[in-house]
């Protein structure tokens, strides 16, 4: 541990006046509208899911850092953010323990085992979500309708199931507001966009990744969509693409830090999302797309570095 103290990692926030803590809490603040929307739509269960995930994430961070005899930095907000994203990635009908298991996995295995903050290669909350989906497939797709909490399918699952039927598909307006089944945090595109605009305005996130991600999804869905129902707009508002593009794909640690790299990364995310949504085995591909691009990120970054040696890539 000692010998590593001088290594400054690639995380761009070390180069700006922003501290990790400030960034984390700004992102958490930006997530509040979407989190609030989920509580409005899915009730107390949503709040419980989010609280349990956050508490489990922070507690795991504390225990692991204690065990590894590292400096305890649970107040920097990164564990809270991971827990919050974990909770918001759960379906409302899932059992309450599942968020805790996900958060423990996210923090202990995906983050701290790789050295902690800024050193993981995958987004912890997303990796945990994919793991939960693989471990408990039925629990992780227990979608319910907002307000009256009746078991339902997500718009994407309905579209995937066969010839889209205008009667069963939700209205785009409902999808925009969030009045559809889905993971807690991903239903309300409106609330997520408010958070996203705030983050771009505050210069916490770069516009490139969300723009290229969402743009690719929109263009490809428009080209390959059927009958105007499986349209570009439908695929922008449905599923986790807003949440993913704004809050998960933009994670500093797991995305390229070069401008060109970010375009490639965003387009890659969009491509894989559409590939899985249209032709894959799952109705939703956002989390897998981001995880796969997380894996590619080091290579993308290497091949888009502006100078070959010695210089750290400048990040706007």
């Amino acid at each position, binding site marked *: 541990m000692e010998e590593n103290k001088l290594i400054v990692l690639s995380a761009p926030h070390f180069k700006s006046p922003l501290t990790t803590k400030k960034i984390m809490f700004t992102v958490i603040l930006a997530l509040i509208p979407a989190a609030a929307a989920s509580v409005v739509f899915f009730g107390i269960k949503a709040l419980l899911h989010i609280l349990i995930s956050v508490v489990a994430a922070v507690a795991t961070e504390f225990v692991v850092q204690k065990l590894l005899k590292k400096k305890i930095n649970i107040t920097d907000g990164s564990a809270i953010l991971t827990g919050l994203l974990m909770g918001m990635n759960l379906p409302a009908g899932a*059992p309450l323990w599942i968020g805790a298991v996900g958060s423990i996995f996210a923090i202990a*295995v995906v983050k701290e*085992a790789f050295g902690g903050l800024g050193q993981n290669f995958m987004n912890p909350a997303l990796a945990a979500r994919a*793991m939960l989906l*693989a*471990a*408990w*497939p039925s*629990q992780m797709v227990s979608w319910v309708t907002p307000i009256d909490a009746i078991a339902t399918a997500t718009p994407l699952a309905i579209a995937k199931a066969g010839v889209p039927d205008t009667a069963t598909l939700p209205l785009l307006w409902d999808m925009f507001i969030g009045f559809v089944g889905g993971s807690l945090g991903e239903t309300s595109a409106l609330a997520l966009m408010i958070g996203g605009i705030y983050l771009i305005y505050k210069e916490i996130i770069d516009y490139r990744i969300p723009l290229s991600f969402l743009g690719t999804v929109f263009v490809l869905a428009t080209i390959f969509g059927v009958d105007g129902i499986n349209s570009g707009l439908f695929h922008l508002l449905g599923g986790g693409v807003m949440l993913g593009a704004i809050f998960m794909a933009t994670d500093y640690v797991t995305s390229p830090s070069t401008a060109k790299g970010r375009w490639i990364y965003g387009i890659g995310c969009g491509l894989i999302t559409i590939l899985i949504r249209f032709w894959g085995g799952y109705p939703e591909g956002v989390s897998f797309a981001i995880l796969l691009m997380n894996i590619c990120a080091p290579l993308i970054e290497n091949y888009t570095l502006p100078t070959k040696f010695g210089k750290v890539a400048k990040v706007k």
Partner: protein
Amino acid sequence: MKNKYLKTLTDGVVTENPLFRLVLGTCPALAVSSAVANGFWMGLMVIFVLTFSNMLISALRNFIPDKIRIPCYIVIIATFVTIVDLLMAAYMHEMHKTLGIFIPLIVVNCIILARAESFASKNSILHSAVDGIGMGLGFMAALMIVATFREVLGNGTFFNIRVLPAGFPVAKVMVEAPGAFITLGLVLGLINLITARSKTA
């Protein structure tokens, strides 16, 4: 004299455990550790092949020309693998189907060639046999340890006997690929930790 053999045996099982310490034979370790029974049978086959190939290679060690020793070893190993393959197909048909391609692949299990090259080619027949048994047992034990975690958490059973209540939400992923990699990684880490602790203590 006795001591030497005992040491070889414990080396194979504990201090030089092929999977946990030397990290050899990882492909079958990942593939067949989804159930304890699979690990047991794979371990048994490796013990058989390793012991007999070690003995034969040791017996022929003064006759095999140095230049073509590797192909010779491979042919000897492949012969014993074919024998267990046929034996399994005849008497343990279900298990033969479950382990599938990983039975012929025992040929390229690095443990066996590594023992041939580094032990059997330099030691007596009896000593090589003991080494084969020790290394094989070590591999079998390692497989079964990893498989225990995976089968209990992923299927709720141990050696096909139900140990978790029927309604327990088992994590399906444990018996699949990601569970294999992560379990083996964590078990290796745990063993490193224990060894480090016991050395300092």
